């Protein structure tokens, strides 16, 4: 048991050191949501009035509405990027080192997913900190309650990223992932607009958004941030995390990648 703990803490420590040492990576991950919050949301503030919807108790400005979605956007980008680089990129070298560990491969992969998810949370809280200064101030208790929700979402998206990169050859470059995974997941969700607004425009678009796992991720975090519990979102996120992680571990096999490259 101790060997497992030593291994897991070593993997987390390495991710932490890389995070601390690569400040530009950290800053660039923050720039994206901040642009949305400080520019996009400011521009759309007048256009998009937000009615009173759960979990909010009153009318809210648009900036308040999109903060949970932007927090999840950080996790979405990190999850996809991290998992792809884990399998194909320059990190292939470090992946080989990881796999020479005598501990089971399933444990190593899950540790790696959890470690990168924990580091992603630091970026999310840095973003929430800046949003706080900007004026988006959820209750302090809500910031604490959002922690497990954010961790669950981070795990779900990292596992999804790993699963996709195992399964689909075309996703080897990040542009493909942006177009076919990140953008559809993000825009067809409740991150930027409440779903009832979407329903006003198009019934089938509404259903696409309502079925999108990312919508459930965003709502789980949104409710937690305002000290509310969303059981449906929790159930969907827990279930999908387990399914994605299980499939990702089962389909992870570098020789499949080699086979695809050789054909």
């Amino acid at each position, binding site marked *: 048991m101790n060997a497992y703990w*030593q291994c897991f803490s070593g993997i987390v420590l390495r991710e932490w050191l890389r995070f601390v040492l690569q400040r530009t990576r950290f800053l660039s991950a923050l720039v994206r949501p901040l642009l949305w919050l400080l520019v996009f949301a400011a521009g759309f503030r007048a256009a998009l009035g937000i009615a009173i919807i759960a979990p909010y108790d009153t009318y809210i400005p648009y900036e308040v509405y999109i903060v949970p979605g932007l927090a999840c956007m950080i996790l979405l980008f990190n999850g996809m990027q991290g998992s792809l680089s884990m399998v194909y990129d320059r990190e292939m070298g470090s992946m*080989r080192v990881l796999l020479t560990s005598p501990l089971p491969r399933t444990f190593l992969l899950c540790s790696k997913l959890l470690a990168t998810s924990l580091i992603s949370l630091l970026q999310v809280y840095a973003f929430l900190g800046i949003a706080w200064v900007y004026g988006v101030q959820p209750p302090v208790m809500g910031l604490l309650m959002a922690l497990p929700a954010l961790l669950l979402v981070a795990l779900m998206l990292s596992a999804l990223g790993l699963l996709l990169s195992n399964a689909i050859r075309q996703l080897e470059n990040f542009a493909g992932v942006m177009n076919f995974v990140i953008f559809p997941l993000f825009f067809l969700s409740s991150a930027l607009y409440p779903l009832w607004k979407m329903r006003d425009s198009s019934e089938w678009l509404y259903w696409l958004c309502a079925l999108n796992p990312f919508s459930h991720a965003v709502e789980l975090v949104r409710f937690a941030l305002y000290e509310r519990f969303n059981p449906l979102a929790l159930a969907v996120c827990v279930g999908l995390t387990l399914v994605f992680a299980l499939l990702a571990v089962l389909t992870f096999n570098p020789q499949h990648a080699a086979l695809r490259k050789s054909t």
Partner: protein
Amino acid sequence: MNALEVSDLSFSYGAREALRQVSFSLAPGRFAALLGPNGAGKSTLIALLTRLYDVQRGDIRVGGCSLRDAARPALKQLGVVFQQSTLDLDLSVEQNLRYHAALHGMSRRQTGLRVDAELARQALTERRRERVRELNGGHRRRVEIARALLHEPRLLLLDEASVGLDPASRLALNQHIRSLCREQHLSVLWTTHLLDEVHASDDLLILHQGRLVASGQADVLSLEHGGDLGSAFARLTTPGVTG
């Protein structure tokens, strides 16, 4: 007990066969050179030996433990230096070593002792806090060797470890590994395509088109197949000739 035993190992990428019925063994304290032209199947063999790929047919035993059935004790006895550097460039020498120790589940105390010992052996103690990025190619290789030996393996696998080094560093690395072999009774499998890295008394394995076309002591094989190592290698790996 042999440090490494490969028996009847075959591997295919779909319809393309990369290794066919490869068998050899490596005794404790021996230095074995694995030679083969590009595409001979060396990389596939290394990927199988390091568990990157799963064994399809045949078996690999490290220190008597099968990689297929007892991967954990087998990998505990295996140290690896990969062809391309696998160090974290932004981390210090010591941080890289500690990460590896953690992957092997070593305790904090044991890690401290082993890191000190291996750094001293590689004459890197003074540089333990330097970032790997600041080291030259030869020093980086030494860090990787220190790392590979941290968990005290019985078998050290070096995949084209001298690639990218200048001639002096290449020679020094080769001599250093041989001294480990003698002093630590470590078994070494050294893959290369450079004939001058092979000594007469080494075990020699020649891989060609996925098959092991020759194995035995280098000087004996040389005599059997042409007089010197260069001509023996050329004869054994001429296209179409598979031994």
